[in-house]
């Protein structure tokens, strides 16, 4: 069998150096990602809008009342189709249409982009996005589809783009009419992000872009992409520049979006190939060679640590969502015949199930303890473990479920005899997305060792 050419470079690189040998602080703790994983493990803790309301300023209190009233009569009804667990797995236009309609109505009502200036399509308020978020979460509204746009692209554009570009792009970003995606990773730049090679060459007041981005969630729906490009091959970090580029408008004219098929057989993310895409210089963010610094703005906001709080919504119960919890595996074990009884009678499996339950409870308690300062040694010690633990625990829960199913785990989602509709083998395979994306477990361990334990940086 031949290997597709585009993946050959990945393979070559994998062979050339141990995958774990690269580190990059850019990937340090991506709680948005961790939160998505955690959501499936622990019951999502909805913020106490009542408790928070007590600390409101007069403006916030008035805005909160307004949000609450609006949501009461405008919260969307049940979706007509099954929704994915997170916005990053939106696969069909039916899903997208429903979610885009919701985001547009929330934006039109003033619940999105509240803290941005009116001139760029914002609400011109102060510290009010938090209020809107709390009320949307409390009302258990659907999630917002333009998640990369709102959480990462908007603050980056706002802090680093020219005024006319902000006014051009941000309103349709906030409304969700334009979906955004992020072009950071490449076949040769995964954990070691700063080694991106996709190149922008100046030609008059334009740039000509050639290269290859991968693992690009939402690219198949995206109008725009935030992108980290190389403009100088002689400097690793200072040779990077940051742009926003049109995707949809340039399809077939310099941009190709192809779905990458996951090991599960599903799609969900893409590769994007640039072949002489021409981009106007006004879409360059900040100065030439400042791409790495601009990327830090993106990642800072992704972590929720930036100045501008991203709009958040979610909490709507998904009827058919699959719970990745030890409790679900215990139920499965009780229903799985084994010898004279069930798998839940097997001493070895019981031990494994309890190991899993203990890790799961431990993660929950870590989050609780992270808010008790007297029981903390280092401020980042627990937060930086979140993504690592959430993804690895989800993986081992699914792995255990597959073990409990035994031979029946060979039956996949298309088989009517598959236990739990074949969801466990699917979850198990999908779990590798979590332990690889947003900084692999190995990179997370480097970050913990270096940032928290103070060990020397590995190369």
């Amino acid at each position: 069998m031949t290997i597709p050419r585009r993946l050959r470079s990945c393979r070559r690189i994998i062979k050339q150096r141990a995958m774990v040998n690269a580190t990059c602080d850019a990937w340090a703790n991506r709680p948005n990602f961790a939160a998505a994983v955690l959501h499936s493990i622990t019951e999502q803790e909805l913020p106490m809008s009542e408790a928070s309301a007590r600390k409101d300023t007069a403006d916030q209190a008035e805005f909160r009342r307004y949000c609450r009233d609006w949501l009461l009569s405008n919260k969307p009804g049940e979706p007509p189709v099954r929704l994915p667990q997170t916005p990053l797995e939106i696969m069909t236009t039916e899903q997208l249409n429903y979610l885009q309609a919701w985001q547009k109505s929330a934006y039109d009502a003033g619940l999105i982009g509240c803290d941005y200036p009116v001139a760029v399509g914002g609400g011109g308020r102060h510290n009010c996005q938090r209020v809107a978020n709390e009320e949307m979460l409390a009302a258990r509204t659907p999630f917002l589809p333009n998640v990369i746009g709102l959480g990462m692209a908007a603050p980056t554009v706002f802090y680093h783009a020219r005024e006319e570009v902000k006014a051009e792009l941000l309103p349709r970003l906030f409304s969700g009419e334009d979906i955004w995606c992020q072009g950071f990773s490449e076949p040769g730049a995964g954990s070691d992000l700063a080694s991106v090679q996709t190149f922008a060459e100046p030609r008059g007041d334009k740039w000509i872009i050639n290269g290859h981005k991968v693992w690009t969630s939402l690219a198949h729906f995206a109008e725009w992409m935030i992108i980290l490009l190389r403009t100088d091959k002689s400097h690793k970090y200072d040779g990077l520049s940051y742009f926003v580029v049109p995707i949809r408008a340039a399809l077939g004219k310099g941009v190709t979006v192809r779905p990458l098929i996951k090991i599960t057989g599903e799609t969900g993310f893409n590769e994007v190939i640039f072949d002489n895409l021409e981009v106007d210089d006004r879409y360059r963010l900040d100065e030439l060679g400042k791409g790495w610094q601009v990327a830090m703005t993106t990642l800072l906001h992704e972590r929720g640590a930036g100045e501008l709080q991203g709009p958040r919504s979610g909490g709507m119960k998904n009827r058919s969502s699959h719970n990745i919890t030890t409790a679900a595996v215990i139920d499965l074990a009780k229903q799985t015949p084994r010898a004279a009884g069930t798998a839940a009678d097997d001493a070895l499996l019981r031990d494994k199930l309890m190991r899993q339950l203990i890790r799961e409870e431990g993660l929950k308690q870590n989050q609780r303890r992270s808010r008790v300062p007297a029981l903390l040694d280092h401020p980042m010690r627990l937060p930086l473990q979140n993504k690592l633990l959430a993804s690895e625990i989800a993986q081992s829960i699914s792995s255990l479920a597959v073990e409990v199913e035994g031979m029946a785990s060979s039956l996949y989602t298309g088989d009517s005899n598959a236990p739990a509709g074949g969801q466990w083998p699917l979850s198990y395979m999908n779990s590798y997305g979590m332990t690889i994306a947003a900084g692999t477990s190995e990179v997370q361990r480097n970050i913990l060792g270096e940032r928290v334990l103070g060990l020397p940086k590995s190369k």
Partner: protein
Amino acid sequence: MKQPNNYGFGEEAALLKESARKFFREHFTTDRLHALVAADPNPARAPQCQWERDLWSQLVDLGWTMLAVPEEAGGVGMPVAAVAGLVEEVGRAAFPCPLLGTLNATYALVACGEPGAAALADIAAGEAATLALADRSASWDPTATEVEYRDGGLHGTAWFVQDARKCDKFLVCASTAAGYGLFWVAAGAAGVTLEADSIVDLTRDQAHVRFDGAQGIEVSTNALAVLHTAMPAIWTLLAADMVGAGEWQLQTTVEYAATRKQFDHPLGFFQAIKHPLVEVMVQIDEAKSLVYNAACACDTEPQKAAQFAHMAKASASDMAAYASSRSVQSHGGIGFTWECYVHLYFKRQKHSQVLWGDGPWHRARLADIVIGNAA
């Protein structure tokens, strides 16, 4: 009842933990520990019991031994969560003392109700105590006890008694005509003989205690019920000790890995060293979070206390084994020598790992609660 978000670990608890940490930092360094307990490496050495009585008296004067004694019994009445904070610091210092035993006895005596009051008064007056429950297989199931109460006295042997030679009193489980009772017995009473064990752990002493007609106060006629109530706090506090000791192991090993150079780099540069140390940290944090959750359950949600304490002790036992293993291995050749301090904590942790049930034992009990008994 719902648990408070902060585990009930309030300002007082934080102050106690911080002052304990400061106390040991000032008065009991690892140098001092080593000098105190590791003078004789001979494997065939006589059983030893090295401890700093003066420092212990100071702890007693500070009220640390009566923290868990209810106020109405003359104690301080601190919640288990606060006591766990103190015990974590004792574990970090690996301070040889009968504090855990005294706290264990306290929780059992509180569960005895009114008949335990006089014994609690002894503890409030500064006496040290320990549990004498186990048979020679280390089972503390009352029905397994080898001590019998007959003819007005106790007869038989209690095994694996912790810090026995540092204590004034034993809380002894014995079979009686009516079932199984608990007895409060003075260590120096007639008919009590301590036979010290020669143990691996240098920071504790251990003995089997023989009773030949010894007299004691019967503080409970239902040992089963009392232990059922008291054991979760006992498991939780031992786990807290292990978390503190684990943190010492981690920090000491990290410090070594950051300074010792091989192949032109500090050891910690290499991921074969770095990643296991991160894993030690992750396991410590899991155990620590579970300890405070269990402690808080003892205080506010007793119906969940056993379940959460099984989690805490199972987690701490596995962590202690792994942290110990990595502490010696990552130190390389020097870590294998008597002069390097890591063996002190290695041995303390291996002792704690199996004391009051190891990981598999606690997970089996947890499974009985969570899944139900196996068919």
